[in-house]
């Protein structure tokens, strides 16, 4: 089975062909945004990190931004640096240039301020966009697909309909030799034993238990009941009574295949195949960023209450498990898994519809959130304090 993608110099295959404008620190966001608004064919990543953080977090931010740049959906990259940030913009430039992509960097302070940096950056971005805009898609094997999956604004239909559909698609892609990544470590609480049982070996099983334990300890260190934080008030209004119930419904979307390993939040995959976990929180801005940094060409996102957001460089396919929500928010939902709840369709039927949809999206068809550019709320998950 094939799809039409952009083959990059490092062998990865993109489903989109953007020039990525990457601010190396939050202080560079306005310049990055101005360039992005001026030059079509660019996307930017307006995060809030990169300075006055503990060194491990600064390294985490640097690594995550590098991994974002590795995404095969980006054809070329412009790094926008302030000049005095805590992240390592020189390493960003060096490691991204090593992918064979055309990478440029500007420094706001060195260029003499914001307006001059916007002008210089716009000129560079225009050049990069013209350079990559003629690249052509070519047929590539489906095993080059990296699908990320997530559920957000869940209710009790998620675990019984939309997550089952994603599980069906995940199994099918793994059987075809592709890669599937899931995360939301918080939403393993209460279901981690089921995941550990599916690990390819004891070491991976222990790692799964370890990341869940670390996430639970971070939550417990605040000294209160996690409920309302997770599950959220929206989850609770949707009928989810505890994190355990939410988790058991959430892990259904990972399908049934063996779990090959656990990726750190900032890591990008190189040649890994099969089903993988990425250690992420459940909140959208952070997990979407983490998943795009993995190198996923797209995300399949399940919702019950109706989560509309996407991500700049990664199309997000919304699949809604709640028939009432689908009817109410059809403009934001790409697929209706609510028909499983009403008994009109089977999981397999909607699963095949979802598979057909993802092939179209890989080939270039826009998702609903992509078409309206609802994707600016992004961020990088850090562990320590802002100092």
């Amino acid at each position, binding site marked *: 089975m094939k799809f039409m993608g952009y083959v990059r110099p490092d062998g990865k295959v993109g489903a989109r062909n953007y020039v990525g404008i990457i601010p190396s620190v939050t202080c560079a966001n306005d310049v990055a945004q101005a360039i992005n608004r001026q030059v079509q064919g660019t996307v930017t990543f307006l995060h809030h990190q990169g300075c006055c953080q503990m060194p491990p977090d600064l390294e985490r931010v640097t690594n995550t931004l590098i991994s974002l740049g590795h995404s095969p959906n980006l054809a070329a990259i412009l790094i926008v640096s302030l000049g005095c940030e805590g992240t390592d913009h020189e390493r960003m430039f060096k490691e991204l240039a090593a992918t064979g992509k055309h990478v440029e960097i500007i420094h706001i302070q060195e260029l003499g301020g914001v307006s001059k940096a916007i002008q210089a950056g716009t000129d560079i971005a225009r050049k990069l966009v013209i350079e990559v805009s003629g690249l052509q898609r070519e047929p590539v094997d489906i095993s080059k697909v990296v699908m990320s999956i997530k559920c957000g604004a869940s209710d009790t239909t998620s675990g019984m309909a939309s997550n089952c559909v994603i599980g069906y698609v995940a199994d099918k892609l793994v059987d075809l030799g592709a890669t599937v990544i899931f995360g939301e470590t918080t939403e393993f609480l209460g279901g981690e034993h089921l995941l550990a049982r599916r690990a390819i070996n004891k070491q991976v099983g222990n790692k799964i238990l370890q990341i869940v334990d670390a996430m639970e300890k971070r939550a417990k260190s605040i000294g209160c009941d*996690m409920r309302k934080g997770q599950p959220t008030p929206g989850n609770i209004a949707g*009928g989810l009574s*505890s994190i355990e119930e939410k988790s058991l419904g959430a892990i259904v979307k990972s399908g049934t295949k063996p779990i090959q390993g656990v990726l750190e939040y900032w890591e990008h995959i190189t040649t890994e195949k099969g089903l993988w976990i990425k250690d992420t929180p459940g909140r959208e801005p952070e997990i979407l960023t983490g998943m795009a940094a993995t190198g996923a060409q797209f995300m399949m996102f399940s919702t019950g209450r109706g989560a509309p957001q996407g991500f700049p460089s990664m199309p997000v396919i919304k699949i809604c498990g709640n028939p009432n929500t689908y009817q109410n928010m059809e403009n934001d939902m790409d697929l209706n898994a609510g028909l499983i709840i009403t008994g009109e369709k089977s999981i397999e039927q909607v699963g095949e519809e979802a598979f057909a949809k993802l092939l179209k999206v890989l080939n270039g068809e826009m998702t609903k959130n992509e078409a309206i550019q609802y994707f600016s709320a992004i961020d990088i998950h850090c562990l320590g304090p802002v100092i």
Partner: protein
Amino acid sequence: MDLKLALKVNDKDNVATIFANDIRDGTEVEIRDKAGHMDKVMVKGDVPYGHKIAVRDIHKGDLIIKYGEEIGIATKEIAKGEYVHIHNLDSMRGRGDLQGGAVS
């Protein structure tokens, strides 16, 4: 009258999820499991779409089971047909408020 359906996912479950609108105290719903077995029960309490009811009596301190796994603990006596949610189900995870939960 429309069928008012509640789904029991796993044989071990002591709760079922109602996928119907306008479930009021005293409404009769049909609980179905995967094998297609049916059990009619009178709902106690107003239950919103997608929320749960007990499929048998659950005692205070008993585990509440869905998907065949623990989703919490009953904080009150719960009768068959009664609405089960955060008012009578406590989570057992991420409980920094409990003894030993907080980092000293």
